[in-house]
């Protein structure tokens, strides 16, 4: 009961004090406002980057394995990987026949060529040669048209499917389906346009690519390119089991003895996520440290102003002590005051950073997480209590006789 009176009286006094020193309160609070805005914006930015990454990473498909010569991450010994034997497109067929845990396997090879249609062109577009199984294996979706058939693939027909960006670049006003484009000088009929994928890995998604049958690719652009085998893991199959099965098949294909190391890598989206998680972790740590500093400076401002406030109100403290306020009561009164200033700062900070996060959303899809809102309020309260403690403690220890004499 007594404690409740103290809280109520503390809040009453705090509001009075803030009202009486409006300009000072505003300036002091500004430090906390800036601190809270920078910390919450940092959190929001990281949230945005993480979301963008997750969206981009999903373009690789969580159930797709990529058998390649090089690993995606941790490639510290480039020469070792460089000297590995090339993968062959024919492996795809063998894997499809021998693996039980996969749905589709498609090889792909890639090079860069100019793509032209009339006077419009896209220089150095990413040209991928693959089979009719690619669409199923990679999980890409077609917006308009159809992917090439097995006959077109096996026969090396001059047909192609183009990514969303390619379509936008060379067919700004014409329906691309049925048109003939020049890929590296050779004519190809457009069968389909892919759905736009977007995200951070634009180069690796289908957006900037032109897909042609692998046999056409080999005969026109050469057969010396690195082959990637895209493998779609069957539904309801654990990806690690599929990976193990693939490894066994690959080792058999390569005739490796038990003591020999793998001379290929099986990559997956998960690897990127892990690396990205580590990177964002570091960015977050550094970012929160720097923005936390501004909050710290704000806290010092609060401490400073609370010292001023205590000195100014020495007489008042004396009066309160004379009529029966205990040490704890005085301590509490000043703690409530600094906590209230900081909490107000936190609330104002959130009111500033929320609209800012909406603006940021236009550039990088993001949202201020609820956890950040709660944490920001808690942190501002904590800053108030911590930075108010020393001044409040000094107030509580004042000698009533001395304090009453103070003018």
């Amino acid at each position, binding site marked *: 009961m007594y404690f409740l009176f103290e809280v109520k009286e503390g809040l009453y006094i705090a509001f009075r004090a803030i009202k009486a020193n409006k300009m000072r309160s505003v300036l002091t609070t500004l430090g906390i406002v800036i601190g809270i805005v920078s910390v919450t914006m940092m959190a929001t930015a990281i949230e945005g980057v993480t979301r963008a990454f997750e969206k981009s990473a999903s373009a690789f498909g969580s159930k797709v394995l990529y058998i390649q010569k090089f690993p995606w991450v941790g490639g510290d010994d480039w020469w070792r990987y460089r000297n590995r034997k090339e993968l062959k497109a024919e492996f795809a067929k063998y894997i499809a026949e021998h693996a039980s845990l996969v749905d589709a396997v498609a090889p792909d090879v890639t090079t860069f060529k100019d793509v032209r249609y009339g006077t419009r062109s896209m220089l150095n577009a990413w040209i991928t040669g693959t089979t009719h199984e690619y669409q199923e294996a990679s999980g890409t979706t077609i917006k308009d048209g159809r992917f090439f058939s097995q006959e077109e693939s096996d026969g090396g027909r001059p047909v192609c499917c183009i990514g969303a960006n390619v379509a936008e670049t060379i067919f700004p006003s014409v329906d691309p389906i049925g048109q003939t484009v020049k890929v590296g000088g050779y004519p190809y009929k457009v069968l389909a346009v892919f759905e736009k994928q977007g995200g951070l890995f634009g180069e690796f998604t289908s957006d900037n690519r032109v897909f042609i049958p692998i046999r056409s690719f080999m005969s026109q652009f050469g057969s010396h390119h690195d082959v990637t085998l895209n493998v779609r893991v069957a539904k309801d199959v654990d990806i690690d089991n599929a990976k193990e099965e693939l490894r066994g098949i690959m080792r058999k294909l390569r005739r490796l003895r038990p003591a020999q190391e793998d001379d290929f890598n099986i990559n997956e989206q998960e690897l990127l996520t892990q690396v990205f998680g580590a990177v964002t972790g570091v960015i977050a740590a550094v970012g929160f440290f720097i923005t936390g500093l501004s909050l710290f400076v704000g806290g010092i401002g609060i401490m400073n102003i609370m010292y001023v406030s205590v000195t100014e109100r020495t007489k008042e403290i004396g009066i309160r002590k*004379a009529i029966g306020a205990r040490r704890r009561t005085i301590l509490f009164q000043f703690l409530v005051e600094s906590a209230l200033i900081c909490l107000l700062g936190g609330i104002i900070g959130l009111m500033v950073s929320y609209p800012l996060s909406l603006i940021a959303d236009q550039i990088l899809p993001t949202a201020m997480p609820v956890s950040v809102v709660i944490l920001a309020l808690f942190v501002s309260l904590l800053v108030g209590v911590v930075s108010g403690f020393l001044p409040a403690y000094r107030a509580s220890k004042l000698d009533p006789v001395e304090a009453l004499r103070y003018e």
Partner: protein
Amino acid sequence: MNNSEVINLQQIIKTYDMGGAEEVHALRGVSIQIRKNEYVAIMGPSGSGKSTLMNIIGCLDTPTSGLYEFNSVNVSEMNDNQLAKVRNKEIGFVFQTFNLLARSDALHNVELPLIYGGVTSADRKRRAREALEHVGLGDRIHHKPNELSGGQRQRVAIARALVNQPSILLADEPTGNLDSKTGDEIMQLFEELHRQGNTIILVTHEEYIAEHAHRIVRIRDGMIESDQTINKRTPALADQGR
């Protein structure tokens, strides 16, 4: 020493250490007893130690040595929190400069001792209002100190001092900041409060103010110079502690 003694000071010594070997002896062995419903004036020139004595009686300060019993309870060795409780419940202070909280209205100023005493809100408002009515300020309860005259401010302070029904009313130069007419009104209020049964201790250096009291204790150089009862002469208490 009978039970009606509110204050019993025995050989109170107060020494201030001014740093180094220098010491100031503010009180050099003061013994004094004050009974219930007495009206005592403590007089003395500045530097006599009367302020120190008042601070000790008011439990704002503790003696270096000696015994201080308040309502037969030893307060000379109490800690800060215990002293705060005695000040809150048993002592009503009236100061020369009123010492009201400038940002609070009269009612909240009078409520303050009740807040620290843990009295519930409704009860608190009623008692504070009654105390203000008692000093003739029933129509000024929502005025802030700067909206009140000096005399009215001192009445608010007296209401605040009385609201917890303390054992003693301790007034330090209560008319020092008032003109003589308003001062007289305040002194009449004290006399009325005395008639109603309150114990009043008045600290002053003005002879004509001290004459309102029924007993005058004079302090000089940290010791009691004289202790005389006027009007009602009770020789038993006279000249004690000399």
